[in-house]
């Protein structure tokens, strides 16, 4: 017999992943890793949508996930483009070296 994972467990799991991503954005120094953490947060939201969709027996959440995946792809494309542009002028991907604008 197939074992079913309780959707509520997945909800908690998604919340944990979301906060891991948030913490990663706040504390990590490497911009590439920060971008990965943003993606992690987006995927945690996807998991939340899917498990709510399962709990509520409603298809809307699963449809939303497709849109979110598309947006996430566009976002990482723009983000990596900006990182490359910064790397060309700065020669580093460390957040500590971003220092010109202050006040």
């Amino acid at each position, binding site marked *: 017999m197939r074992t079913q994972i309780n959707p509520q467990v997945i*909800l908690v799991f998604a919340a944990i992943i*979301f906060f891991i*991503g*948030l913490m990663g*954005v706040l504390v990590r120094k490497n*911009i590439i890793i*920060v*971008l990965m953490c*943003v993606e992690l*947060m*987006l995927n*945690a*939201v996807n998991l*939340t*949508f899917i498990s*709510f969709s399962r*709990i*509520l*027996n*409603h*298809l*809307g*959440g699963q449809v*939303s996930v497709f*849109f*979110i995946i598309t*947006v996430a792809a*566009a*976002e990482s494309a*723009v*983000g990596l*483009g*900006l*990182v490359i*542009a*910064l790397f*060309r*002028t*700065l020669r580093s991907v460390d957040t500590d070296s*971003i220092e*010109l*604008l*202050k*006040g």
Partner: protein
Amino acid sequence: MNMGNMMSFIKPELLVFNNLMFKSSAPYLWVLLGIAFVIVLSVLNKINKKWFVFIFMLVFACLGVRSAFQLMNEPAVLLFNQMLVSDSFGSFFNILFLGSAIITALSSFRYLDKQEIQHPEYYILLLLSSLGMMLMASALDLIVLFIALEIMSLAVYVLVGFRRHDRKSNEAALKYFILGSVASVIFLYGVALLYGVTATTQIREILKHVHASQGAMSPLFVIGVGLILFGFLFKVACVPLHMWMPDVYEGAPAPITGFMTAGLKTAAFAAFIRVFTSLGYGTAFSVQLQNHFHDLLWVFAVATMVVGNLVALLQTNLKRMLAYSSIAHSGYLLVGILSGCLNQEGYAPLLVYLMAYIVMNLGVFAILSFLSSRDDTGLSLYDLSGLSRRHPVFSFCLAVFLFSMAGLPPTVGFVGKYWLFYSAVQAGEVSLVVISVLCSAVSVYYYLRVLVYVYMRDEVSSFGEQRSLSIFYHFAVGLMVICTLQWGLMPSSLLQIAKKVVMSF
């Protein structure tokens, strides 16, 4: 799973796309068509791209404005399975967004030449981000709202980093990208939680749920609303979520800074009004929850006004000063949000203030784009010394805009502030209005200090002779001056439009 239940939210009668719906979605379709057309133009090799792309971008934006004007008096029409609505509220904001895109394009044409970054992508991204704003103001579904927010933001991230050989511009773009995308994701998590409670992402369905539950909110719902509120407060740069704004404003190209102050903030407020009135703010929340949100917004509004105005006093870079002044204006606009649900004029004063805000900011930044030098410097206070001798007309226009920002008559800024504070007093927010007026009095100092440098100091630097003056700058600045003075002297038409728009909503 029960398929019938799962499919129940797709209503077949709403999936048709009839003539009326086609007409109602005309502004969006014109802009979309414009984007596609300009992309095709920009990859052709045989033509002079610069002029063609610029002119066609303006033509399509004007067509969008024209059809939005025609839709102003039409009744509301639901589009795309109730995902979007075309009503006068939406059309009003569509006109504002496309208008700011047009003025921004006019003031960036020579600026881009000067910076040697005249690429056709600039105008495409400008149109794309205004499309995102238009969808944001008329979305009725939180997922559509999120996608619109991302369309707008992704285009603006690239525009902020458009001077890509400049380190400042790149740093600003990346900072904005990381913070902005985190805020969007937090907003989205709020949407997911609301979906979990109400089994829908459509804001009207959520309102029905709120009405049905009679104020008994689950904690999940409150957290979801809180996260959505966080997303909006970030986008309008409320203290303490404002740290990104001065850096981004300083690093971005000057015309884009103007576009961000005008467009992004207005879009965020438009969506704010639509979502929060629809989520039951002011009508359906329980008294306790209503008070909680009221107090929360009250604290945010006061902090934003005080910090924005006080820090602006210390700035010597004009773009940074205007960034802090824009934060302070967010505070005044939050006063409008707070009092909007408590008096009979509703959000009409807020709309008038937004219009005033857009007009004066676009005007100031058109002048700044003209004044900025080759590497986008030359925008500190001292560089403006003796400007009135070099450019008497532009100095006069700058004076008009700064008087308007400070809220002095006879400008539109005065009308906006007067009506906003008057309605807030009517709503019983007296202490809030006292704080706002005091902050506004402080702001007069840093606005007029610029004019002291412009009119009363001797010229120190002599660069600026090589700046190419063009008809586009004159047109953009002239139009904004006319709007500022016309609406300042004869505000009744403006007030009437705002009232009508709010009534339709």
